[in-house]
């Protein structure tokens, strides 16, 4: 139906890898919990892009998987933010560095 366009699958994969790396850097280096959660969303989106880029080659299974990933991201964001609110209510801080109750 269509030939290879100039933008090949590799372009999309590189973009997905770039977003994944940005998300990982965000998770590992930021102090604010909300920004860490948003970096996790970046990681999930990079995975989604990967799945959909491959679904163009292999069929619709990738897109169905991507829909499930989005659903799970919604559930996870809701629970994570609930935990965040409960934590903030007790400790009045949103810094990951100060979450050290289990340190000895």
């Amino acid at each position, binding site marked *: 139906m269509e030939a290879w366009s100039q933008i090949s699958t590799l372009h999309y994969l590189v973009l997905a890898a770039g977003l994944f790396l940005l998300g990982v850097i965000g998770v590992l280096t930021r*102090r604010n919990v909300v920004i860490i959660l948003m970096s996790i969303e970046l990681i999930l989106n990079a995975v989604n892009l990967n799945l959909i880029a491959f679904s*163009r080659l292999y069929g619709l299974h990738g897109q169905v998987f991507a829909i499930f990933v989005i659903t799970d991201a919604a559930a996870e964001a809701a629970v994570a933010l609930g935990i965040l609110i409960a934590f903030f209510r007790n400790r009045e801080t949103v810094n990951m560095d100060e979450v050290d109750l289990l340190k000895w």
Partner: protein
Amino acid sequence: MTPVATPFFFYLLAGLALLGGVLVITRRNPVHSALALILTLLALAGIYLMLYAPFVAGVQIILYVGGIMVLFLFVIMLVDVGRAEKEARFNKQWVVGVVASLALGMLFVSAYVKGKALFPERLARLAEESNTQEIAKFLYGDYLLAFEVASLLLLVAMIGAVVMAKKRV
């Protein structure tokens, strides 16, 4: 719907997505980070449209941008932003984090370079007019169990979020 000017739109949307990603991890104010994440999500929705996935693009806009990001913005507004502005952005081990991420990036690059020959030569014939119908056949056919489990997961998440966030009287 044949794609028009694919390289231009790909580079534009990819640039916007990467710009949004960089802004997410570098802004001091969480609200600005949330807005940058919205930019990234919208750019990705455009890229999904280019990849012949209109239903996933629509789901991305409704769920991610219209649902999850609203949730994030609510929580950011309830959590004190003023303190976050005056504190340090990056934690003590940021150097190690960046080095580890770059190592991961090297791994990705080597995987792509070595595995590039494995991609099939032809694209799958994805009919775009009936994309929604085909996805529905998968969701309610092959992946029915996963669908039911996902709905149960959402129920559990809803109950969990309510229990975590409600006031203890």
